[in-house]
């Protein structure tokens, strides 16, 4: 297959996932996942642990391989080709549950690493971009510190800024607030809401239902490796169609 072969599809659709199947050994983790994401759309994925929600978004930038089905990101098909994988990773930013900042580098170095080494930008320009995004996540004064000197909430905001420095088209969030102390969740969610308001295409795996109601265009509920239901947040939370979603909602909302 030729590299970066554009596949004719609506330009509106930035991510097209068709019949995606994945196995860990014999274990069938993802079963026929079909999902199309439009440019600028904000999607929240929720579901019990082990339901395959993280695995699904990790397939999008190929942190996970899949065995069957197709995945197209910004017109580039994900195949076993380093060029295609790199092309897709340039378009997709990711934020992790445990931040995954590089502990041996300063905050500024964490942010400039990608622009300098991947995009081959001059150091001064990379630092300018980095400071711009640090200001956006409201911690420019921490630029010369090391990640270990920051609070969890600050680290996660740095991680978001690090992704944004690569000017991605799509942002993936893999439970960005699950590892945070309750007092720090809001500062991270605020940054995410701001990002959503600016029109970023976002896929968020999260259990923050307030956030989902506020920004999501669509909420997807997964269980046992399948998409069980998807709908607007109001419909999904107020009018669950399946018993599985009803059970899930009753467990996360009733206390």
């Amino acid at each position: 297959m030729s590299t970066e072969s554009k596949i004719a599809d609506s330009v509106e659709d930035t991510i097209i996932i068709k019949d995606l199947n994945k196995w860990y050994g014999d274990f069938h983790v993802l079963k026929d996942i079909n999902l199309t994401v439009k440019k600028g759309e904000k999607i929240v994925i929720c579901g019990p642990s082990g339901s395959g929600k993280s695995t699904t978004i990790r397939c999008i930038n190929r942190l996970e391989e899949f065995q069957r089905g197709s995945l197209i990101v910004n017109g580039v098909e994900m195949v076993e080709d380093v060029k295609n994988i790199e092309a897709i990773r340039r378009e997709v930013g990711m934020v992790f549950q445990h931040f995954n900042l590089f502990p041996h580098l300063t905050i500024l170095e964490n942010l400039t690493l990608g622009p300098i080494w991947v995009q081959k930008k001059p150091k001064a320009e990379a630092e300018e971009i980095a400071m711009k995004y640090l200001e956006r996540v409201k911690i420019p004064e921490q630029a010369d510190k090391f990640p270990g000197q920051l609070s969890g909430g600050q680290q996660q905001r740095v991680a978001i800024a690090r992704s944004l420095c690569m000017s991605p088209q799509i942002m993936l969030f893999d439970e960005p607030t699950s590892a945070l102390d309750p007092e720090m969740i809001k500062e991270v969610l605020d940054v995410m809401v701001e990002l959503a308001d600016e029109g970023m295409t976002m896929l968020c795996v999260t259990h923050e239902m307030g956030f989902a109601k506020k920004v999501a265009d669509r909420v997807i509920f997964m269980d046992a490796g399948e998409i069980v239901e998807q709908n607007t947040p109001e419909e999904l939370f107020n009018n669950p169609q399946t018993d599985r979603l009803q059970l899930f909602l009753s467990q996360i909302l009733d206390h």
Partner: protein
Amino acid sequence: MANTFKSDPIEFKPAVAQPAPDSTVGIVAWMRVNLFSSIPNAMFTIFIMLGLANFIPGIIDWMFISSTWSGVNQDACVGDGACWVFVKAWSQQFFYGSYATDQIWRVNLSLILLFVVIVLSFTLPASYRLKVSVPLFLVLPFVCIAILDGRLLGLEHVNTDFWGGFSLNVLMAAAAIIVAFPFSFLWALGRRSDMPLARSISVVFIEFFRGVPVLALFFMGSVMLPLFFAEGTNVDKLVRVWIVLIFFMSGYMAEVFRGGFQAIPSGQYEAADSIGLGYWQKTLLIILPQVIKVSMPNILATFVMLFKNTVFLLIIGIPEVLQTLLTALSNSNWLGGHAIEGYVFVGVIFWVCCFGMSMLASNIEKKLDTSHRN
């Protein structure tokens, strides 16, 4: 929700911290907990103390009180205790082998350079520590060889036959571990690789050099290695031994590095991938610096082992410090039975160096525990 709170809340003041109660600190409390916590424990403590009281005065008497310190030759050794005159008279050979006396500054210069580079690698600011110290370390062995050999620098040529003594142990060990460093890193990467060929070659190499005793390796180096060189080339004996030490060391260090790799959370790889870094960028910029950091205590421990193993070089006739001692003991002018003094002396200098490195390692370990972790 927020607007239902009271408008004038009570101010919360944290309580002042208080000192720990006396019964848990101080020397008496320490002894009670550590030496006399139970009857068998107390008996054991007393038994050990009695044993020490029995032996230590004799040792101190032999080493310091009845010992002879002044004199220049065998005739001075008339006391009952140790005759340190023997060690004093041979000290230059013990440290520098047969290196010409007026050229000894070159050995000292090499040792000083080694010391300076080591100190720099621990004290430079973190932001460019690796960038500066790694290249310095990598050129150091070759600079030292040039200084000691002399031909390249226009100094008087000193043949490797004359290199020797404790300085040779130190420099051989250092030169071996430094060159082994990049190799062992590659072996460790190979062993973790997804490519079956790279992985099996690495496993075979690592396990061979870990599995074969170092003495056997030295024999192979001095007898077998010449067979692999082109006919007519005469590779220096020290170089051959150096190659053996490098291989031996890189086998061990590859395993140290593998442990280091396993200590790096998978999230670091994923974050590097998600930014779009390539394999070598990811490995060199993100993973390697962290691996070196977490492996440092184990690298030092491995170095201590290698350093002690350099005395085995005597088996193939290299005049390192123990070989020099044996030569001194069989010298007809010193047939007074100075073996104990000699071995105590060699033991003490090795112990001081190794203990120093252990202290350094545990220091680093403590720092690792508290410093910026993710």
